[in-house]
C-alpha cells in the first residue's frame, strides 16, 4: 500500500495518542460509527447495556452517548456512539462532530483508539462508501456487517474473508438485534487491533469513484445483494395507500394523542398522590418550622408538580420509540410532509408538535429526530404555543368563572366548550403564523433538500425501547432535580420574606407581593391587579401554579379550578375584558422554566431560548393589551 503525505500525517497523530489521556481512562476507547439505519445504536446498546450515559457535546446540539463494555477477560472498553453519517465530509453538525472526534480534534473527547464501523449487510455496496474515509484515518477498525439475519433470510451472501482481505481490516458478520456474532466484536475489542491496510482506496472527495470502489470491493468479496424486502414492500402498499394509509396515519395520531392526554391521567394522579402522601408523612414527622414549610410547600410541591409529567414523558417516548424503531415514523413523516411544508416545516416536525399538546418539554426533546437543524429549531420555537396540559387547569378556572354556560349547538356544544376549543385553535394558529414568519426569514432553509430514507420495517426490541425510556427519564429528572428545584426554592423564599414579628408575612406583604405591586403599573393596561401580578410571577415555575397562588391570596387551603369560591373571588377582581386578556396572556406567554431550560439544552446556548422568551412575552403582552382594550 502506498501512502500520500496527508494520510501519513493523519496516521502519525493516531500512533501517539494511546498515551496520557488513555492512561487516565485506563481502558480502550472505541468509537461506533455508521450510516443512519445501520443498527449502530442497537450494537452500542448490546455491548454497553445499562452502563451508558448521555450528555451534549459542549457547544453543539449533538448528543453524546458513551458507555462501558465489559470484555470477556474482565477488562473494560469505553465506547462512544457517534451520530449516524453517510460520509465524513463535514457539512452538518453531526458530520463535523464525527470527523472531529475520529481525528482527535475535540478537546472534550479523547481520540478513539479503535473504530467499530457498522454497515448494513443487506445494502453493502452503498454502505461500503463510508469505509473509504474511515479506513483512510488509519485507526484500527473492525468492519461490522450488521443485519446478518436479514441478509440470510433474503438470500444474500458474501465472502467475509475476501472482504477483510480487500479492506485490510478484520470483518464480522453480526446481527445486533439477535445478539448474533457479538463474540467477534468482543474478540476485536480485546485483541491487538492492527492498523488497517486496504488494498486500494479511492479519492475521497469523488463520490462516483468512491461508489465504484465500493462496488469493486463488494464484487471481490463475492457479495450477492439480498432480494428486496418483501414484507416492507407489502406493508408500504398498505401504509402508503392513498386512502388506507391516511386512515392508519390518523388512527396513529389519535392513539398517541389520546394516550398522552387521557389514558396517562391515572398514572399522573398516582404520582401526584405519592407526592401528597409522602409530603404529608414528612410533614407529620418534622416539627412545625419554616424549614418544614420550605421542604413541603417549596421543594416537595414544586418538584412534584414537574415530576407529575414523567408518565407523559415516558409514554410519549415509548410511542416515538415504537414508531421510530419499527420504521413507521419515516412513513408518517412522508404522509405529513405535504401539510407541514405549507407552513415551511417538514414531515418530521409533526410528531413533536402533536406531543406539545401534552407538554412542550418532551416535545422539544423529541425534535432530535429532525436532522435539518433549521427545521428543528423552528419546531422547537413554535412548540410552546401548542396548548399544553399545564394551561388546561388555568383555562378551566377562568372559563368557568367568566363564561356563562349556554348551549350553542343543542346538547353537544356549550359556550364554555367553544371558549376552550377557541383557545386551542388560537395557540395553533399563532404557531403556524410564527413558523411561516421564521421559515421565510431567519430560519429559511431553501437550499437544503428534503431527503428521507425509508428503512425496512423491523420489530422494535424491548431492550432498545427500555434503554430509550431510561435515557429520556434521566434527562427529564435531572432537570427537575436542578433548575426546577432552584426556582421553586427561590419562589418559596420570595413568598415568605421579609418576616413580620418573627413570622412569614401574608403573601401580599412578601417580596413576591411587593414585586406584584411593583409590576402593577405594567400589567394594569392589561386589566390585571397586583394579585394577578403575583400569580403571573409564580406561574413562571409552572403555569398551573397561578391557581395555588391565587388560592393563597384569597385565603383558601386547597384551591382547584372547579372551586366555586375561587371563581367568585376571581370574578370580583377581574373585569371580563381582563379575563380574556389573562387567557390570551396564558396562551402566548412562555411561563415555564422547564421549557426554557430544555430549549437551552437542545439548542446549546442562550440565544434561542432568550429570543423565544422575548418574542412570546411581547406577543402575550400585546395580545392581552389589545383584548382588554377592545372588550372594555
Amino acid at each position, binding site marked *: 500500500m502506498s501512502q*500520500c503525505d496527508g494520510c501519513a500525517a493523519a496516521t502519525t497523530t493516531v500512533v501517539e495518542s494511546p498515551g496520557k489521556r488513555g492512561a487516565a481512562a485506563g481502558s480502550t476507547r472505541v468509537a461506533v460509527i455508521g450510516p443512519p439505519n445501520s443498527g449502530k445504536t442497537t450494537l452500542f446498546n448490546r455491548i454497553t447495556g445499562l452502563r451508558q450515559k448521555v450528555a451534549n457535546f459542549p457547544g453543539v446540539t449533538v448528543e453524546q452517548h458513551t458507555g462501558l463494555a465489559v470484555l470477556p477477560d474482565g477488562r473494560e472498553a469505553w465506547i462512544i456512539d457517534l451520530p449516524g453519517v453517510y460520509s465524513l465530509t463535514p457539512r452538518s453538525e453531526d458530520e463535523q462532530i464525527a470527523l472531529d472526534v475520529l481525528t482527535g480534534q475535540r478537546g472534550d473527547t479523547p481520540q478513539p483508539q479503535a473504530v467499530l464501523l457498522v454497515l448494513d449487510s443487506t445494502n453493502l455496496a452503498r454502505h461500503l462508501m463510508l469505509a473509504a474515509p474511515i479506513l483512510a484515518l488509519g485507526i484500527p477498525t473492525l468492519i461490522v456487517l450488521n443485519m446478518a439475519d436479514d441478509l440470510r433470510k433474503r438470500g444474500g451472501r458474501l465472502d467475509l474473508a475476501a472482504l477483510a482481505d480487500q479492506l485490510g481490516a478484520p470483518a464480522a458478520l453480526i446481527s445486533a438485534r439477535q445478539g448474533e456474532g457479538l463474540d467477534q466484536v468482543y474478540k476485536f475489542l480485546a485483541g491487538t487491533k492492527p492498523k488497517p491496510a486496504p488494498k486500494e482506496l479511492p479519492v475521497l472527495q469523488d463520490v462516483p469513484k468512491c461508489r465504484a470502489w465500493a462496488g469493486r470491493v463488494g464484487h471481490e468479496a463475492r457479495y450477492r445483494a439480498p432480494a428486496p424486502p418483501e414484507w416492507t414492500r407489502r406493508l408500504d402498499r398498505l401504509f*402508503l395507500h392513498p386512502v388506507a394509509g391516511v386512515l392508519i396515519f390518523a388512527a396513529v395520531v389519535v392513539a398517541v394523542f389520546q394516550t398522552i392526554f387521557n389514558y396517562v391521567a391515572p398514572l399522573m394522579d398516582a404520582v401526584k398522590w405519592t407526592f401528597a402522601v409522602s409530603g404529608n408523612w414528612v410533614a407529620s414527622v418534622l416539627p412545625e418550622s419554616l424549614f418544614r414549610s420550605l421542604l413541603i410547600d417549596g421543594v416537595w410541591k414544586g418538584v412534584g408538580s414537574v415530576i407529575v409529567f414523567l408518565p407523559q414523558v415516558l409514554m410519549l417516548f415509548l410511542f416515538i420509540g415504537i414508531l421510530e424503531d419499527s420504521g413507521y415514523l419515516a412513513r408518517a413523516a412522508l404522509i405529513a410532509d405535504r401539510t407541514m411544508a405549507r407552513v415551511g416545516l417538514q414531515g418530521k416536525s409533526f410528531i413533536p408538535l402533536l406531543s406539545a399538546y401534552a407538554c412542550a418539554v418532551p416535545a422539544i426533546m423529541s425534535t432530535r429526530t429532525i436532522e435539518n437543524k433549521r427545521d428543528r429549531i423552528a419546531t422547537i420555537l413554535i412548540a410552546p404555543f401548542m396548548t399544553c396540559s399545564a394551561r388546561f387547569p388555568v383555562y378551566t378556572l377562568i372559563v368557568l368563572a367568566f363564561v356563562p354556560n349556554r348551549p350553542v349547538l343543542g346538547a353537544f356544544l356549550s359556550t364554555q366548550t367553544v371558549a376552550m376549543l377557541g383557545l386551542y385553535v388560537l395557540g395553533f394558529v399563532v404557531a403556524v403564523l410564527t413558523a411561516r414568519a421564521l421559515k421565510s426569514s431567519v430560519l429559511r432553509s431553501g437550499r437544503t433538500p428534503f431527503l428521507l*430514507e425509508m428503512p425496512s420495517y423491523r420489530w422494535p426490541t424491548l431492550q432498545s425501547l427500555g434503554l430509550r425510556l431510561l435515557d429520556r427519564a434521566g434527562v427529564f429528572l435531572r432537570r427537575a432535580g436542578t433548575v426546577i428545584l432552584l426556582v421553586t426554592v427561590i419562589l418559596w423564599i420570595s413568598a415568605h420574606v421579609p418576616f413580620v414579628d418573627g413570622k412569614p408575612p401574608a403573601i401580599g406583604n412578601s417580596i413576591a407581593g411587593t414585586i406584584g405591586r411593583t409590576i402593577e403599573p405594567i400589567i394594569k393596561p392589561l386589566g390585571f391587579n397586583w394579585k394577578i401580578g403575583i400569580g403571573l410571577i409564580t406561574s413562571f415555575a409552572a403555569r398551573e401554579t397561578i391557581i395555588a397562588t391565587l388560592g393563597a391570596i384569597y385565603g383558601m387551603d386547597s384551591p382547584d379550578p372547579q372551586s366555586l369560591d375561587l371563581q367568585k373571588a376571581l370574578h370580583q377582581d377581574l373585569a371580563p375584558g381582563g379575563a380574556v386578556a389573562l387567557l390570551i396572556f396564558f396562551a402566548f406567554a412562555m411561563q415555564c422554566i422547564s421549557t426554557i431550560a430544555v430549549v437551552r439544552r437542545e439548542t446549546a446556548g442562550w440565544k434561542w431560548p432568550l429570543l423565544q422568551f422575548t418574542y412570546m412575552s411581547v406577543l402575550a403582552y400585546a395580545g392581552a393589551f389589545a383584548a382588554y382594550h377592545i372588550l372594555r
Partner: protein
Amino acid sequence: MPLDNYFRPHHTETMLQPSSNNGQPEPLGTLLDLRRGDAAILDRIDLPGEDARRLMELGFLPGTPITAGLSAPGGDPRVFQVDGSEIALRRETARGVKVRLHHPPRHP
C-alpha cells in the same frame, strides 16, 4: 494503485458527468416524469453542488437505474428505489434529477 490526496478538496465538476449518449439519443426527462413502477437511468443532477453531493451519497449517481415507488397522498413527496435503498424526495428536488427515459414521458 496509488492513494491520492485523501483530505485535499477536489473540484466537484467531475461528479456531474454529462450523459454519454453515443449517438443513440434517448429522451431526457426528470424524476417527475416517472410514474409508479417506471424505471430510468440517472443522467445528471441539476442541483447546487452540496445538494447534488448529498443525493450522490445516497446512491443517486450518473448511470444508476432508478425506479419510482409509492408516494405520499397527492404524489408528493415520492419514494425512489435507488442503489438498494428507498429514498423519498420532494417534487422540487426530484425535478433537478435528470434521467434518460426508456420510454418517452407519458404526460401530455
